[in-house]
């Protein structure tokens, strides 16, 4: 049984009805005042047991944030290496493809240019923009003595639940065992997202822990990992936040050029098909595996939010949904070894799932989200893209694995030079050519080459979102 009062709400709920959101990134100025502030913030934090109607508030900290608040060395050592070293560490940069324009040196936040160390993120959600503004002002006032707000990252909900390239997003999401019910293949153990619980290997993983003596107020629960210890990390989760800038004009411009016939005229059907092949779903969300030739005309068709499909038995050759398409490679389901198409494959796939809580930012080039309008729209230089957020219990095996072994890997599924077409790292280095996209077909494949990088990273950090008891412990240290 999950203690929903202890788990912060955003981990288990998407707050889908709270369409306005913004994130405040802050630096802790004073340890004592920060502890006082945490005590107040605890009243504001939305737990998973609540059903927020008008606003929601959650918070998470970086490793530096926990250090600054004075968490004991023993507990700090229980965090994962990835979290301690941070997203900008050299090894991590290579794994995540953050180089060239996407290198941390060029980030607007979270990189080495940052004047003050990033310690805390406050995630604010509200039903309306007005409510959001009020919430932000209250949260800022409440934390002012302790926290200096370095950045405010706004979000923008787009028509049709789409992201900026024009495709419906957020359809696929794993279900946590014990919290909600879903299909067997899509349900994962709580320990894949929350520390202190059994994961898909049937174990309780390492967690930041304290000797029992250090928790004299008995705020924390006993650790299931190590006897005579208290689990600081229980019910917490690692939060990945990467702000991804999307070059929407370049994306449709590329597809437009590729869909041109011998006379130089673009066929909009082909253009849309190429885009859908790259994503794995049509713009309105219908999966290619189930609608390979054309999407349902009605955007409210249940097929548009369909997440119940498999790859191996219905599309082994990738004729419908290419192997390199975004959704097929970010969640391969039962299509990879061992024994594709069987339980064994799904069992392994479950070890690489994440819970996504991203939200777009920036105004759309055109409210219709249609390619022709997008291509004609004037480029005001405004930045737009996706605030990618996800939760997982093991950064290396889950988020980083997906990013490195599936998304950015030009060798995924036996391919040669196909990194993810939407967000893959296409700058050739020692890894050879990566800017191709193969559309398997009979008799012969179509191959798109020279893909530029459409998505760049402009900011990012690893956070840990503790349970409420853990935050209380920090507040009363």
């Amino acid at each position, binding site marked *: 049984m999950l203690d929903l009062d202890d788990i912060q709400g955003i981990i288990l709920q998407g707050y889908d009805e709270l369409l306005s959101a913004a994130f405040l990134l802050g630096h802790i100025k004073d340890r004592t005042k920060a502890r006082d502030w945490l005590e107040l913030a605890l009243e504001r934090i939305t737990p998973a047991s609540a059903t927020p109607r008008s606003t929601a508030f959650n918070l998470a900290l970086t490793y530096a944030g926990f250090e600054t608040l004075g968490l004991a060395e023993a507990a700090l050592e229980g965090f994962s290496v990835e979290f301690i070293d941070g997203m900008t560490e050299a*090894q991590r940069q290579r794994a995540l493809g953050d180089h060239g324009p996407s290198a941390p040196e060029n980030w607007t936040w979270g990189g080495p240019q940052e004047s003050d160390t990033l310690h805390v993120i406050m995630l604010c959600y509200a039903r309306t923009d007005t409510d959001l503004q009020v919430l932000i002002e209250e949260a800022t006032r409440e934390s002012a003595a302790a926290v200096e707000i370095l950045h405010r990252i706004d979000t923008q909900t787009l028509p049709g639940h789409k992201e900026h390239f024009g495709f419906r997003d957020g359809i696929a999401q794993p279900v946590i065992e014990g919290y909600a019910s879903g299909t067997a293949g899509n349900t994962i153990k709580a320990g894949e997202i929350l520390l202190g619980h059994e994961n898909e290997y049937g*174990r309780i993983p390492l967690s930041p822990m304290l000797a029992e003596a250090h928790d004299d107020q008995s705020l924390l629960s006993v650790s299931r990992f190590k006897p005579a210890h208290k689990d600081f990390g229980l019910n917490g989760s690692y939060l990945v936040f990467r702000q991804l800038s999307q070059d929407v004009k370049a994306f449709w411009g590329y597809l437009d050029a590729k869909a041109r016939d011998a006379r130089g005229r673009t066929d909009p059907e082909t253009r849309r098909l190429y885009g859908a092949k790259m994503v794995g779903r049509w713009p309105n969300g219908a999966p290619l595996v189930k609608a390979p030739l054309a999407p349902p005309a009605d955007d409210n068709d249940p097929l548009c939010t369909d997440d119940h499909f498999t790859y191996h038995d219905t599309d082994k050759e990738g004729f419908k949904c290419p192997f390199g398409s975004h959704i097929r490679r970010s969640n391969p389901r039962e299509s990879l070894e061992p024994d594709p198409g069987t339980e064994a494959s799904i069992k392994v796939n479950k070890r690489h799932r994440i819970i996504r809580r991203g939200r777009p930012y920036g105004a759309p080039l055109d409210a219709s989200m249609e390619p022709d309008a997008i291509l004609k729209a004037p480029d005001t230089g405004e930045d737009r893209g996706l605030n990618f957020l996800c939760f997982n219990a093991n950064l290396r095996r889950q988020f980083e694995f997906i990013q490195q072994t599936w998304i950015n890997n030009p060798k995924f599924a036996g391919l040669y030079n196909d990194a993810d077409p939407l967000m893959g790292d296409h700058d050739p280095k*020692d*890894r050879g050519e990566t800017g191709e996209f193969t559309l398997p077909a009979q008799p012969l494949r179509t*191959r798109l080459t020279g893909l530029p990088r459409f998505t760049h990273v402009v900011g990012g950090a690893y956070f840990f979102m503790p349970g409420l008891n853990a935050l209380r412990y920090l507040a009363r240290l």
Partner: protein
Amino acid sequence: MVHQQALMILCPIQRGEEDAVKTRLIELDQRLRDNQPVILERLEGLHFARWVVLDAAEDRDGNPLPAELLFSANIDGDARAFIKQMIDTDPELIKSLYAHCRDFPDPQSINEDGLYDWLNRHTQDYAAFYIGSVGKRVDTIHREANLRDALEQHIDAEHAAGRLKDQSALAIRDALCSWVRTQKDLQWALLPEPGPSPADWAWHWGKLAAIVAAALFVVIRFFLTVVLLFIGWLSTVRVLERRDRQHPYDDDRQARMRHIRLVSREEDRITQNPMTSVTHIKTGFIRIVTLRFVLWAINLLARYLYVHGKLGSIPTIHFARWAIIDDARRLVFLSNYDGSWENYLGDFVDKAAVGLTGVWSNTIGFPDTVLLLFKGAKDEERFKAYTRRSQTLTQFWYSAYKNLTVDNITNNTRIREGLRGVMNEDQAQEWLLHL
């Protein structure tokens, strides 16, 4: 050749000189990455090679082990011929490296023959050797990769010109074969690849037949003895297992994390990664005998069963090797694999846990095992922590085909093979899917 060969040269380094050797190796590695000439890329028939310094350490009983210089290469052809080729290509570099080793003669006085003899005396046999692309020569791998590139670009050009559309698979295949025939630098693909001679094959399969015959004979003739021995052995192993201490993996976190950062520093620069791992074999007669037997069995499987690009169901290994060193006190594992460390280890835990456990449960620090094969590597966090701890930085590493995975190599061969012979529509279609 039926399959590639493994070469390993191992020698202790003179006290106090290991840092100098490491610095030199790292320097050479950097030069290679900067595309400057270093010895290895000029050698023929070389798939992968590495030079590693094994740090000075204490053995399982606390006795000192010197730092050692390890050289490993996966090659086409004969080990002795390869050593000669290395010396012929750059004798000064070889001499300067090995001059740091303990029983190396005076560098001024040693000549190339002396160097050749000395290196040969320091070669080390392996206990098990797995090959991903069995029998594939380096030059074949390169040529087949170029063939595929040329074909793919040709197909793209044909598509752009509006040709190759609305044709049957057979017609497309014919067109592609004709085109290859016109390309001077690709015509070799239309000829069959020279394989091993019948004599080689006879020797290869003859060995297996002899082993099977001998095993059957012993088991049938001495059935009761064999069964009793087996039960005795298994029970002893179980008793030993129960006595083994379970090692924590959350101890000494700072040191562990420093070590992880060190050994993973050079990872993920190209498509493949190297792994060099050294572990201490558990004391006692039963353990070493078990280890040797398990490795012998794995080697047998690698020679005769796992010859299609997969070790069990792991498809990412180009070459993997186990060797027992230091008077049977340590086990060294060397591999060249595709993709990230996390993916590789994940594959071990998810797909090959039993085999691995059979080998490494005989080494100190491995997660709790039951009956040699069970549990063990399935303890994901502990097993990965154990592996990182056993890993040492590979200072100088070379790959002859930096951006080809095992899958790519196998696929390239299918493409090349499909250019020859007669096919029907279905076969032609199946072949086209490889492009």
